[in-house]
């Protein structure tokens, strides 16, 4: 039961959702809408809630064990702050919830992400070396793109931006396309394996 029932549900839902693609009948549309819209979205939302519940559990454990207590309390405070603000003032444009998003969450997230600029600079200095022919090709292309996408590139030579776009649109695109086709074929195979119950990692491998 713990394994067979989920496998059966997976098989049925997979086959039904696959077949409905080839039908425009109202019943097929209804099934499709019900599963994708009403069920799928709600279940997905619950998975997030379970994740948040897990986070709260771990944080509370940290607090009780006095391990990184201050940071755990700050995280918990942040987690509670947003729902409280939403309860007090709603989520309208002038609400405290929007204020917190604009002045606390958004600037911090953008700043954390911008740290990558520094690490890229440091990594470029320390690790970006023309050790071999493939590495030299990689380095050369990167340098060309870095120059070619500058506003001053066309003033240095009109050919630089053109060459940059040519490389992006043809040889680079061809390699990316090969990767994409590989992913497409791999995804299809995996999807088929999941529906047929061969791939069971979502059942913890059982």
């Amino acid at each position: 039961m713990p394994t067979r029932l989920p496998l059966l549900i997976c098989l049925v839902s997979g086959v039904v959702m696959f077949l409905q693609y080839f039908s425009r009948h109202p019943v097929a549309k209804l099934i499709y809408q019900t599963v994708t819209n009403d069920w799928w979205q709600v279940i997905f939302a619950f998975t997030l809630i379970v994740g948040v519940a897990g986070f709260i559990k771990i944080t509370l454990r940290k607090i009780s064990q006095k391990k990184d207590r201050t940071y755990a309390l700050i995280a918990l405070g942040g987690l509670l702050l947003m729902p409280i603000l939403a309860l007090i003032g709603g989520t309208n444009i002038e609400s405290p919830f929007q204020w917190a998003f604009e002045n606390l969450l958004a600037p911090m997230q953008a700043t954390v992400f911008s740290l990558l600029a520094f690490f890229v600079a440091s990594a470029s200095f320390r690790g970006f070396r023309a050790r071999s022919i493939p590495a030299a090709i990689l380095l050369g292309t990167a340098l060309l793109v870095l120059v070619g996408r500058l506003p001053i590139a066309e003033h240095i030579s009109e050919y630089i931006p053109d060459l940059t776009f040519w490389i992006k649109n043809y040889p680079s695109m061809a390699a990316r396309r090969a990767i994409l086709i590989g992913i497409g074929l791999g995804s299809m195979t995996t999807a088929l394996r999941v529906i047929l119950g061969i791939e069971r990692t979502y059942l913890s491998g059982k």
Partner: protein
Amino acid sequence: MDIGVIIAGILTLAIYTFLYKDNPIYRAAESLLIGLAMGYVLVIYWQTAFMDRIFSPLLNENDWWVLIPLILGLLMFSRFSRKYSWLSRIPIALMIGAGAGVAIPAMLYARTLKQISASVMPLITESGGFNFEALVVIVGLLSTLTYFYFSREHKGIIGKVAKLGTYFLMIFFGATFGYTVMSRMSTFIGRIDFLLSDFLHIIK
């Protein structure tokens, strides 16, 4: 000055202290960020998934069908019980199965067939000229695919073609690196813009 901007400025600088080394100021800001991000997502999901999809239809329209996804969703909480955790596999199986069923036609058509057909371009143009780009694309595609073909050893002609494939891959990675640098620098410039104009009022 707007209190919100002052707080945002202080938090921005707190995070930049990490550039020196990991420190309590950074860790406090990081913890706050994690908590706020989760709290934010919780509110948005509550509004859009639970209110719109469950409570509103149930309470306003007496739509009892919504009990099915509600029960399926609640089964997810069985993960916290050792004895009944297998029940959470039911909604997961439904989601994964439906996702796989929907994905097969999309992957087949949009990601595979469309991409293959777009690669087959005429080598000779209407005016009789040679379409060099078409050759580059098809050679690049086939050689890169050969590189990812592991069912035969990369020796002889296959080895040479696969090696050519690695060169195309390096061009792709190089171009991606260039654009990624561009992207990261833009994000940093955005924060500098905030610090100099909104926070410190040094520039307009």
